[in-house]
């Protein structure tokens, strides 16, 4: 819009841009931004995650205007949002289901990165910033789940904060510090509310760094090879804005289906019972997006080791760029990893199933095997496959692969 012909508005834009290059920045990073011409729909999930972050903050800010962070009032204030506040039900269901959608998108986004080697040189920091965002999301989601102050909220807070009691010697002191008391109580709720408002904006900041890192070397692509010339890329706008918008429309159908037709499908009925510090619900499970980690925690009979393993399951992602020994990014050209990479999401689904079921009989054994595989995938398979497999030859350039060999030659000089 800024560059459209002469006129008063463009003079004003130029005046501003000379002093604060905002429009030029947008122009450069969102319009002209050269993007690989071969991105598939797997590349939609980054922008979808960004949009979900905005949706969560927008609904969250309005919900915060109606919510009361006090142990005696929180539950009723959420019920008031559901019954009395205009469209409160819609805002809350958008927020609660939005958390699930956000995780779904981010997990797909991460799998895309693992499959196409998006974490490899020179995008290691881009990947690591993504893991930081995931950790912040997990903290924010857990803390947010506590705020309605239902039974699941209360006991989730109790269980998760008690994880820190596994730390030798100072564990109990740390837990008391987290609680601000002898149990989860009003001080806990107050600080959780404060943090739940803070952390999303920390996520926004890290997403900003994530984007700076992304735009430094540009997006990876399904072929996993670098840009070699202008024939390899197309401007972000309109090609990828329209592709992202189409993907967004499809995603919104799924999101809206949950919000309007199954708003409580992903949550637990017990959370509509006010928090009671004297009674634990019969069957405690976390939200679906935490089930695999929960399964890992339960698979280990030792308290400290279970906690360590659970945190390691996320932290191990930080070192994936150095665990992978293959020089080839995209699994398209890696005959073994192409198949093995799918075992990780399958394993995660199995772990999720294990986490959702009571730990008796075969569930425990399956959980232990799946936990073993999860770590073996990263620590054994990924390094080993990189050394053993013989990658297929890479195309000369993105243009060559997409347009045929003539364009590839034209771009190779």
């Amino acid at each position: 819009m800024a560059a459209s012909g002469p006129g008063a508005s463009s003079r004003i834009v130029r005046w501003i841009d000379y002093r604060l290059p905002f429009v030029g920045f947008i122009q450069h990073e969102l319009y002209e931004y050269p993007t690989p011409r071969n991105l598939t729909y797997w590349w939609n999930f980054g922008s979808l995650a960004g949009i979900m972050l905005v949706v969560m903050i927008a609904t969250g800010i309005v919900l915060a205007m109606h919510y009361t962070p006090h142990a005696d009032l929180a539950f009723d204030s959420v019920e008031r949002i559901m019954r009395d506040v205009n469209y409160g039900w819609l805002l809350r269901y958008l927020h609660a289901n939005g958390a699930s959608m956000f995780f779904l998108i981010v997990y797909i986004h991460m799998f895309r990165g693992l499959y196409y080697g998006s974490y490899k040189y020179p995008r290691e920091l881009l990947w690591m910033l993504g893991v930081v965002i995931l950790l912040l999301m997990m903290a924010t989601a857990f803390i947010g789940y506590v705020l309605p102050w239902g039974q699941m909220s209360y006991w989730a807070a109790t269980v998760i904060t008690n994880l820190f009691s596994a730390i030798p010697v100072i564990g109990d002191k740390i837990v008391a510090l987290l609680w601000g008391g002898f149990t989860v109580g009003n001080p806990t709720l107050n600080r959780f509310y404060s943090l739940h408002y803070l952390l999303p904006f920390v996520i926004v900041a890290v997403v900003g760094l994530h984007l700076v890192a992304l735009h430094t070397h540009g997006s990876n692509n399904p072929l996993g090879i670098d840009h070699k010339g202008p024939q390899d890329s197309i401007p972000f706008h309109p090609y990828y804005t329209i592709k992202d918008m189409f993907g967004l429309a499809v995603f919104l159908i799924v999101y809206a289906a949950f919000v309007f037709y199954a708003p409580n499908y992903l949550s637990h009925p017990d959370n509509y019972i006010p928090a009671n510090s004297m009674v634990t619900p019969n069957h405690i499970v976390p939200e679906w997006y935490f089930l695999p980690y929960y399964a890992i925690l339960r698979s280990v009979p030792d308290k400290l080791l279970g906690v360590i393993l659970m945190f390691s399951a996320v932290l191990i992602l930080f070192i994936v760029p150095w665990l992978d020994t293959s020089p080839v990014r995209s699994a398209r050209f890696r005959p073994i990893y192409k198949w093995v990479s799918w075992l990780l999401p399958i394993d995660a689904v199995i772990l999720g199933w294990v986490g959702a079921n009571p730990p008796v009989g075969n569930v425990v054994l399956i959980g232990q095997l799946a936990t073993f595989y999860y770590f073996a995938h990263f620590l054994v398979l990924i390094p080993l496959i990189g050394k053993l497999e013989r990658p297929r030859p890479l195309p000369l350039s993105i243009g060559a692969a997409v347009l045929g060999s003539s364009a590839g030659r034209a771009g190779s000089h």
Partner: protein
Amino acid sequence: MADVAQSQVSPGHGDGESRRDFLILTAAALGAVGAASTIWPFIDSLNPARDTLALATTEVDLTPIASGQRLTVAWRGKPVFIDRRTPAEIKAAQEVDVSALRDPQKDSDRVKPGKAEWLVIVGVCTHLGCIPLGQKTGDDRGEFGGWFCPCHGSVYDTSGRRREGPAPTNLEVPPYEFTSDTAIKIG
């Protein structure tokens, strides 16, 4: 958005441009409707909620109020002054030269017919929202025996009409009705 898209229309396509214009206009219109209907729940949620609206009426039993006594009740979070006026106060209110007032209003227009004894007004100064003095015994009622706003010195008479000071209008008479001879419902 329209100008960006248009600049990409290559010349020479006879009806391509009108087709593109049509698509852009309909897409933009649909987008605007979508954006507006998305934003509306956010804005509407800030309006008074249903439980707030449910507190919109207040019923008051008048039997305990003696002649010359003033009572304050809460209505929608605001004080409402109920004044059982003495014959002298009613007379003073009725004899005022209405044309000399900033907000000309007869006393009979500010009370229910046949109920001149009862003055019901919203106790919020029409200047900047302070609560005028005069409800408690010993309060400064101002020069005209009505109410006196301590914030900026507005003076109201025994009909709650602005007589002096910066207030632009008389104290508001809320909508109310007598449900019996000794009870009213405000709102």
